[in-house]
């Protein structure tokens, strides 16, 4: 790792101030992506601003008809939270399937959603459940938050405070893991509400997580595994890499979607 300075502010205001002091400064959440990236010398922050000392960024609360999860809440804490398990079991299950137990004890929802790795799990939940990203300056709807691979609507100096998930969807997440990394090769989150069906796909999009129009159209006719029979996902815009071609991913996505629909509750 290159040398850097480190601060651990106790308040969000101090964190934003420290972040704004230089364009080369970076926030540190759970570090499960940033630290390996720095070890490979692919990132060279001037100062790391560790968000771990900011109490208001941690924890889960029920807020009316929503679950609000603080940005610095770990995957393990989301997976084990009684309110999340009761209100949005698909979200708790997703959190409990990220990486491995040790990663889940360190990694955070805010870090994952801010990083927007094209194979991360959380972006699929945020997009399918139509969540809202609450930042230090505004609220961003999921549909306008994810703007490309490793790209989001976050502006320099803007930090995620929490993510608000509406309650009430019949939902599930299913993923086909790349066996070595355990990242999603194809991950599909389905959510069925009175407002319709949303299907978010991760691990597969050249531009990161995306909603699948053909799968949503098929499920709009009836939220069932049968409704997906014959549904075709085009390979256009899908990733091709050493793990699988775009055509392969296009053929796997409907299968994983079927599993998610079958598991939805």
């Amino acid at each position, binding site marked *: 790792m290159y*040398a850097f300075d*480190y601060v651990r502010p106790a308040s969000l205001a101090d964190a934003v101030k420290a972040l704004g002091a230089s364009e080369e400064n970076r926030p540190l959440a759970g570090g*499960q992506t940033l*630290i*390996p990236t720095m*070890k490979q010398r692919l990132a060279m922050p001037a100062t790391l601003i560790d968000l771990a000392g900011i109490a208001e960024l941690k924890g889960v609360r029920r807020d009316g008809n929503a679950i609000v999860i603080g940005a610095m809440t770990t995957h393990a804490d989301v997976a084990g939270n009684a309110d999340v398990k009761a209100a949005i079991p698909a979200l708790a299950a997703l959190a409990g399937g990220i990486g491995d*137990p*040790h990663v889940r004890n360190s990694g955070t929802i805010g870090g994952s959603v801010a990083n927007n790795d094209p194979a991360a799990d959380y972006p699929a939940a945020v997009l399918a459940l139509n969540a809202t990203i609450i930042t230090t300056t505004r609220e961003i709807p999921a549909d306008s938050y994810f703007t490309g691979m490793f790209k989001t609507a976050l502006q320099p100096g803007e930090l995620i405070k929490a993510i608000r998930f509406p309650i009430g969807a019949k939902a599930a997440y299913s993923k086909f893991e790349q066996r070595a990394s355990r990242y999603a090769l194809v991950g599909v989150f389905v959510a069925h509400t009175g407002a319709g069906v949303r299907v978010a796909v991760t691990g597969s999009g050249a531009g990161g997580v995306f909603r699948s129009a053909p799968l949503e159209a098929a499920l709009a006719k009836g939220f069932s595994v049968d409704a997906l029979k014959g549904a075709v996902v085009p390979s256009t815009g899908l990733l091709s890499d050493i793990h699988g071609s775009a055509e392969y991913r296009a053929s796997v996505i409907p299968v994983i979607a079927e599993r998610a629909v079958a598991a939805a509750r």
Partner: protein
Amino acid sequence: MPKIAMTVNGKQVSADVPANTLLVEFLRKDLMLTGTHVGCDTSQCGACVVHVNGHAIKSCTTLAVQANGASVMTIEGLAPGADLHTVQAAFKEAHALQCGYCTPGMVMAVVDMLKNNPKPTETQIRHGLSGNICRCTGYHNIVKAVQIASGQAVTA
């Protein structure tokens, strides 16, 4: 250079370390606690697992400064007396190691696993070990050891 202080295996320690010091480097090089191993150094193998504030984490993917003020436990702190920890004893009984390189991380992972789930099923054990790689592929006896440590019938 940041000054850090933490409790390691019940003892208060402090040092001045560069911010880019990994927790595992601090444990091994500054404190000479070489029981914690570095296997892959790319956050995949779990040989470096220690407990920070009671949770198993990868010390190769944690900065020493992040653990400032924390309570850290390494394999050396698991059984400070003459008797082995239950999990260590079960690893011995089931011969759950071959070369032993992954063992400290495995044991620390299993202690955390059993704290959260005292009677895991075989499937839960295998999922619970998903963050730890044994290059000798000796998983079968490790699963047996977890079953022994949790007082369950050995099915593996």
